[in-house]
């Protein structure tokens, strides 16, 4: 009976395995093979060993893009978790209009990041954007600066837009975590004289650790492969200042360096694998 059940399970998992093989394993193996060639996207590919990988580490633009991508990912993850947690704490209290507020906070997450980038572009355009005109009406025309014209401010804008868009998703996970905390703990601590801060830092926060782990890891993974919001908001500019590694891969691929771009994609894959492995390890420890 058990053997029959196992066979049925194996049979039922076949479609998923086929899809996984066709859409993940095969492209991955082809990608590894391609990354060892100098293929330009059209002509004959010649095997060049690990040259593309060595070239990457002397490619100033690529290294700058890694820096930009990591700053974006870490900055986004930190802010997303702080803002998401604050939203969740707010939504865990009772107030009038809570349902509407929750929808409003979550709403940006269902809009395409590409569209979101364009919306913010037209909001933030200096001297022409909607926020500029709004500030002008308030007598504060200098409040909106030329933020997308320099590396640091453009990167900050990108992080803020990303946080504004996805804080709602982070909030939902935290809210689920907060709902799962039994009231007995906080009530017992309150009876023992714990202050609100002590309740939060000694009881709530430690019990939210699984939610924090999920949020931090998913935010970092998502942000490391960021592409669309940057393309629509700054196009990686000025120059290549805010170019992410994903955008660099696309540009190299279309710039007659398809083999090299595949090698960079493999490196990005390894970079993303790091938080994934950390997450798996943490989860296993917990188990």
């Amino acid at each position, binding site marked *: 009976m058990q053997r029959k059940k196992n066979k*049925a399970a194996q*049979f*039922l998992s*076949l*479609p998923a395995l*086929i*899809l996984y093989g066709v859409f993940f394993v095969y492209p991955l193996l082809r990608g590894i093979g391609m990354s060892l060639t100098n293929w*330009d*996207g*059209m*002509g004959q590919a010649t095997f060049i060993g690990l040259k593309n990988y060595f070239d990457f580490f002397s490619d100033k633009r690529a290294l700058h893009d890694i820096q930009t991508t990591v700053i974006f990912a870490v900055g986004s993850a930190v802010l997303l978790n702080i803002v998401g947690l604050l939203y969740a704490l707010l939504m865990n209290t009772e107030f009038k209009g809570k349902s509407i507020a929750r929808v409003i906070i979550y709403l940006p997450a269902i809009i395409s990041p590409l569209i979101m980038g364009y919306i913010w*572009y037209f909001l933030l*355009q*200096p*001297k*022409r954007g909607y926020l500029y005109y709004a500030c002008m009406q308030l007598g504060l025309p200098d409040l909106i600066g*030329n933020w*997308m*014209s*320099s*590396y640091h401010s453009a990167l900050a804008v990108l992080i803020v837009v990303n946080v504004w868009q996805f804080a709602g998703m982070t909030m939902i996970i935290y809210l689920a975590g907060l709902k799962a905390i039994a009231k007995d703990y906080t009530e017992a601590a309150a009876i023992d004289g714990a202050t609100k801060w002590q309740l939060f830092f000694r009881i709530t926060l430690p019990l939210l650790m699984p939610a924090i782990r999920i949020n931090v890891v998913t935010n970092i993974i998502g942000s490391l492969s960021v592409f669309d919001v940057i393309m629509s908001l700054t*196009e990686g*500019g*000025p*120059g*290549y*200042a805010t170019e992410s590694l994903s955008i660099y891969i696309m540009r190299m691929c*279309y*710039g*007659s*360096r398809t083999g*090299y771009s595949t090698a960079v994609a493999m490196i990005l894959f390894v970079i993303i694998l790091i938080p994934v492995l950390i997450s798996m390890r943490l989860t296993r420890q917990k188990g």
Partner: protein
Amino acid sequence: MGKKKFLAVLLTAALGMSTLAGCGATDTSTSGEAPDTNTVTEAATPAASEAEAADSTEKENKAVDLTFFTGKVETVDLLNQIISDYNQQSGGITVEQEYQADASNIIKIKFASGESPDLMTTYEQEYVNQGKYLDLSDRNEWWDRLIPSMKESCTDLESGKQYRVCTNMTMAGFFYNKEMFDELGLKVATTWPEFEANLEAIKEAHPDVDPWFIFGEAWHLGHLIEFMPHGYIKAKYGATEAKKAMLSNDSAKLDWGNPDGAMATFAKNLVELQKKGLINEDVLTATSDNCIDAFVTGKCAMFSNGMWCLSDLLTKNPDMADKIGFAPYPAFMEDGVPVVLVAEDSGYSISAETEHVDEVVDFLNFLFSAENQKKYAETLGSPSAFKDVDASWAPDSIVSGVNDAVASATNIGFTNEKPAGFSGDDAGRLVQDLLAGTYSPEEFAKAYEEAWNAGYTN
């Protein structure tokens, strides 16, 4: 339990079948490609189907589907009309137009996947070198009608052969507000000091007007390099020698990195104008639409662009027709001369892999007819390259202004011979860095030279 298992197996089978169904071949076209949302299709009309039915046997034998790939959004509607007319009388040949905004990249995927369109407007030296286009050198029925300079522009320098036919010409220079120039008594500048003096006079008389509006899109900033420092090289050495220098990366002639050379001088001039407030403050974030809006509302006095923006200007403000002036780029080097771009436009290339050469040629003969080309030139706002086409492509005042500018300056073409790994957009991004203050003019020239050289080796 048994029922549940049966249901699970049934659902799994259904899922598997539906997945595999997606992999099934279609027989709707010769390429087997399903139309996507970006595809603009013009198929045969019912009337055409009826006409075909009249002599069905002959038509069935001739039935051919041709794919025409373009990235020129401004011509899609007009070409759909022409294609529809053609399909109705073609005797079984059906042309299907596919427009893609990112055509220059998508064509690469099509080439790589062996799905080359039969006919295309995308053209790159790289593809010529790889033998992707059909040799059209012996098509004298077209070349005999073409203005000789346009035939020369269509000629591949390395092989001396023609792999595309360009039906139109385009010009690029400075569009300026004639009314404002007349009001301030300004004349078109031929040297950089005159140009700067004009901008200063405009700024002084109209502080709320941007004397020169530059928008931050990479292609536009790349065009400034194309028309000014590259223009200087093309004017200095002549079209053919300049092309050869670029093909062979002749550093003695190009000399991009020289701190006193054309590239550094161009950068120095641009930064100086930026510091003096003679270009718009939001240069890095402004769009081409912002530029058009600023010009038609009198908020900017001049901007650099090609004739392709003319229809937008006149659509947004038809009253501008008499106020639009057109001027060459002033000489910005001591030994330089004013230049204006006069280049080929709307080029058509036939795939070397097509099995339907005669049918594609038949369609092109229809498209290149004087009647269709007149319609095309007038809709596009671009003069025809055919000698036998008499088209009113713009209001008379603009046409005469453009003719004067073209006659008064050295005519240059586009740089098709730049290194494959260094695009016009890449050049524009370096200008973004310059305007963002990342580079000094000398560093900019050096960075340009490095990127240019790397474009040959990458």
